[in-house]
């Protein structure tokens, strides 16, 4: 337990003493929602076939998932920073297991993601009039936490297996493009071609977005959401187990 708290303390110290990190972590999704969301909402209006749901309301879950995706990617990038500093290898000789190290790293960032989600919901409600389903807020926050952790473990695999920073950056850029656009983040899937819908439904970020959308504005089918939630948990667990193995192989 003390090893976990030490990793959390370290992550918190690094973030808390660097204003730019904090700013980016907390306000990035809000800026996205306010600039991108408002722009699309004004230009194109409500998405087709979703009744009286505005684009801002539809996009809210996408913004939250994008935030958890970005936090996970930034946190895994810190492996490169630590490796360049040499502190990465020294930390692996500290009295903690490899899984404690990974979990400790993600706990603080899950906390940031949850705070960020709460802030985004409140500001979305106040500034954009988004109708938030507050009763299911705890489930939404669970979705954010599991989502951030899952994506962190996913990215950690690549950060630990790839040695070169520039290669990792290229890989994450491709991931950003593929995962975000081949999903239900920016648009509803129903009007899209069948092949695209299949690709999006196989995309774990769609599972996370659908959960967040259901718990934030009540859009979606409970049965599908539960199935997607379970699939995401399996995805996150598999990534965690493989990331721990990768950490064991650091030489």
């Amino acid at each position, binding site marked *: 337990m003390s090893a976990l708290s030490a990793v959390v303390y370290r992550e918190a110290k690094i973030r808390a003493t660097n204003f730019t990190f904090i700013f980016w972590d907390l306000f990035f999704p809000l800026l996205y929602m306010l600039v991108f969301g408002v722009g699309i909402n004004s230009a194109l209006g409500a998405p087709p076939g979703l009744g009286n749901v505005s684009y801002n309301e539809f996009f809210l879950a996408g913004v939250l998932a994008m935030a958890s995706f970005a936090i996970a990617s930034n946190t895994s990038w810190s492996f490169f920073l630590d490796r360049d*500093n040499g502190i990465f290898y020294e930390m692996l000789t500290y009295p903690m297991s490899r899984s404690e190290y990974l979990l400790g790293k993600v706990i603080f960032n899950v906390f940031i993601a949850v705070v960020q989600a709460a802030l985004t919901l409140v500001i979305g409600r106040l500034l954009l009039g988004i109708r938030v389903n507050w009763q299911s807020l705890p489930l939404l926050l669970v979705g954010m936490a599991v989502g951030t952790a899952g994506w962190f473990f996913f990215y950690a695999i690549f950060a630990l297996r790839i040695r070169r920073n520039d290669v990792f950056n290229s890989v994450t850029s491709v991931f950003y493009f593929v995962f975000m656009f081949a999903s239900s983040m920016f648009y509803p899937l129903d009007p899209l071609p069948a092949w695209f819908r299949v690709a999006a439904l196989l995309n774990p970020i769609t599972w996370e977005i659908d959960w967040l959308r259901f718990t934030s504005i009540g859009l979606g089918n409970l049965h599908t959401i539960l199935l997607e939630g379970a699939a995401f948990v399996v995805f996150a667990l598999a990534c965690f187990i493989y990331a721990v193995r990768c950490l064991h192989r650091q030489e």
Partner: protein
Amino acid sequence: MSEFALEVENLVKVYAARGKQPVRAVDGMNFRVPRGIIFGLLGPNGAGKSTLLRVLTTLTRPTQGTAKILGYDVVKKSIEVRKRISSVIQETAVELFLSVRDNLLTYARFQGLDQPTATRRADALIENFQLGAEVDRKVQDLSGGFRRRVQVAKVFMVKTPVLFLDEFSTGMDPLLKRQVMNLLRAEVEKGRTIILTTQILSEAEELCDDILIIDKGKQIARGDLNTLKLLSHGVYEVTLTFDRLPETIQSEIAALAPIRSTVEANTIDLALKTEEGRVMEIVSALTHGRRVLRVEVRGASLEDIFVELTTQHAKETA
């Protein structure tokens, strides 16, 4: 608990990169290190020192054999091992985004120290390592030398029984290095075991109670300084200072085929492998009819032993 700080048995570490010949970085090592000493691990570049240290500090798993720290296997009981060690690795391992004080306190937290103890020890080390003026600055704003100070200071925050130092004095000025060497000696007197690697042989000669020389992953020689000097029986160091350097001295030295020789201003330094009586004859011949300011004949230094043993090993394995 084991009476040994370190036990290594048939240890092998092979690096096998795809499409390349496997490299046996550690090749069947066997040794034990008693508690409460400074143990030096010496060898030329690529000898396998750092790989051995990486296995012992649980960073790398061995391919074969076992290694134990205070009786705990580095693979099967890695957490127990990590609780009992602290290490300074070759890279300057520091938290760049944290201040000097936060670096020390964060390290203490990882090692399970309570806050008051951590603060008290950090204050003492900040003074000892002359970090007072930099204490609240982020380490990323400090020079390489100061970063190294922070890194080395960290291991004195804790009282782990075994301490690993990989080239600890890199980037340190002579005064600080002397101070750290005194601190290390004091730690050993309190019962800690220190395992160090270094390329600076005078450092090893001064600090180490027991030395293992390795090359190409294999052990070449083991013992304290006196034992190693016996292995290199017949090696002598000669220093001669003339009022002015004789013109023919370079060719005279070359004819002696020394193990090594240096000429600096009016002084020549030689390491010769020969019989005891012959050394005096050589000194007499080199100084005959010349004005000599200083003559010094000594037994072999660690450097001579190191050069002789590793050269011999290279010839044998070629």
